């Protein structure tokens, strides 16, 4: 179906008997129908609970996530410490909540730069074609030749561990998916009547890309971004597990799992619960993304 940019009034004057503004419909539809998608609501609830727990962490636990208590190390779950304590006597429940603050925050922020960079390059490659397209796609080929974790680990290593290294590494590797998705969508969309009309109306390329094409192609990128947040959180947790994540004593689920692995025989809960927290976050985001792609799909 042909979708119209909300702003293409010039198009209307050229051919009055056009289908209604589909983009506006999708948006209205999203506003009125979002609660009808069961997976979207389920994802929203799961994520809401997790983000709520992390946000209100100081109210939900009496212990600090960094305070060591060497007289109470490796305690099993009890009324005092509901998930027990680790090898330094730090309360696990506190670490879990505060670790979520770290990992979720970095995970959501890490998606922004690849999203912007990939969408921009994808738009340029798709719209201008020829040399620009060849150049961008060559870059994509090069980045894709590296196994994801190999390049991320190598980059974080050379830039240095910590948040800055994670953002830069994920941006260098992560923009490719957005560029591919947006380029593909633009290649189809730019053949549509409304773009040809906008061109005929004499609009410049920047205006056509930003006002006419982008609103129509951004949906797919947004849907991918929800899955990408999961991948980013996984990358952060994995880096933490390998000792390349946020430096201690900042709590992080990955390092918690690494520490817990050494006490697997006696204190299995140490490695298990931080992993379950990652899985729950992943399920929430996957459901949200599934629901979002259903809701944003034009009828």
């Amino acid at each position: 179906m042909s979708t119209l940019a909300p702003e293409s009034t010039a198009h209307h004057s050229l051919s009055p008997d056009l289908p209604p503004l589909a983009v506006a419909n999708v948006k209205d539809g999203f506003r009125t129908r979002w609660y009808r998608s069961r997976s979207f609501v389920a994802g929203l609830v799961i994520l809401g609970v997790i983000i709520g727990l992390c946000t209100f962490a100081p109210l939900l636990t009496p212990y600090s996530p960094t305070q060591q208590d060497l007289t109470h190390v490796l305690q099993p779950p009890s009324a005092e410490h509901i998930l027990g304590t680790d090898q330094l006597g730090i309360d696990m429940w506190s670490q879990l909540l505060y670790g979520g603050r770290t990992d979720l925050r970095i995970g959501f922020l890490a998606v922004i730069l690849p999203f912007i960079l990939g969408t921009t390059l994808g738009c340029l490659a798709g719209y201008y074609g020829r040399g620009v397209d060849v150049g961008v796609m060559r870059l994509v080929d090069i980045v894709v030749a590296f196994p994801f974790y190999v390049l991320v680990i190598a980059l974080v290593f050379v830039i240095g561990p910590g948040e800055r290294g994670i953002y830069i590494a994920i941006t260098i590797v992560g923009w490719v998916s957005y560029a591919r998705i947006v380029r593909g969508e633009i290649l189809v969309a730019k053949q549509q009547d409304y773009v040809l009309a906008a061109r005929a109306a004499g609009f410049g390329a920047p205006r056509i890309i930003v006002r006419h094409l982008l609103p129509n192609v951004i949906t797919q990128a947004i849907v991918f971004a929800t899955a990408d947040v999961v991948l980013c959180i996984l990358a952060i947790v994995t880096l933490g597990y390998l000792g390349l994540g946020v430096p201690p004593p900042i709590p992080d689920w990955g390092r918690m799992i690494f520490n817990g692995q050494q006490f697997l025989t006696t204190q299995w809960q140490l490695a298990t619960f931080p992993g379950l927290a990652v899985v729950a976050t992943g399920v929430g985001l996957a459901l949200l993304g599934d629901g979002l792609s259903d809701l944003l799909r034009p009828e």
Partner: protein
Amino acid sequence: MSIASYIFKRCLLAVPTIFGVTILVFFMIHLVPGDPAVTLLGPRATPELIAQLHHAWGLDKPLLQQYLLYMQRLIHGDLGQSFFFQLPATTLIAERTGATVLLLVTATLFTVVVTIPLAILAAIKRDKTTDHLIRSLPIATLGMPSFWVGIMLILIVSLRLGLLPVGGYGQNLPEHLQSVILPALTIALAISPMTIRSLRASMIEVLEADYILTARAKGASSARVLFRHALRNALIPMVTVLSVNMGWLVGGTVVIERVFAIPGIGGLMLDAIGNRDFALVQAITFVFAIFVIFVYLVADVSYSLIDPRVRYN
């Protein structure tokens, strides 16, 4: 287009990518904030030692000349010298290749074994409960850190049930094989949701083809139609799916080798990072990229051998 000229053209296409990979890997060391020599030497840094390292790494020459030297060595099969081990990177990597290859092959095998029955089941029970269950697998598994899945497998299979070793690689082939079962399973579990989804889609497409209808009309049994006619054709895209996921598979081994203490290339990379051995990290990153490019190439060529239509596109 003949096979030979297709292969030749496909190889030519890989050249600019390999070239780009060398540039990225070469400039990686220039991403190090500050001076890599100072970073490496830490408190031991003296002006003489720093100058010595700069000279050894060629950092005292102009950038372009450095790159040309790097390329010259690369063409002669020299991936650089490990600073920590004082050995050529190629020697160190070659020592560890066996374990990684065994792990990769086993993981690929497990992926195929898990994927085929589940994908067929989902395709023939299309839109029924079984299909919905199989298709919702990615929702549950997308957010599972594979290293954590590995630890959980150790906890259940090795520690509780005592069936397999907790980690390590053993001394001989039977022990090696036993040691790679759990890590390979971990990797297979991470990849399967993606491969199941693709094979299910191509199975459904094939099941709707005319030649399946013909086979059924001829009175062929359901099993025969499914396995002889449908699966054989649906498996072709499976080659592509596996090769597309090879990047994930190979990247996964880095982390999984650490979890299970498998002495492979991934483990070597993490050791090199621990030793701040820049040259070795650089060499391993390069080898992994070349390996993935090679796998894509082999997949494309074998695809064109199985399905000649590909060559005409």
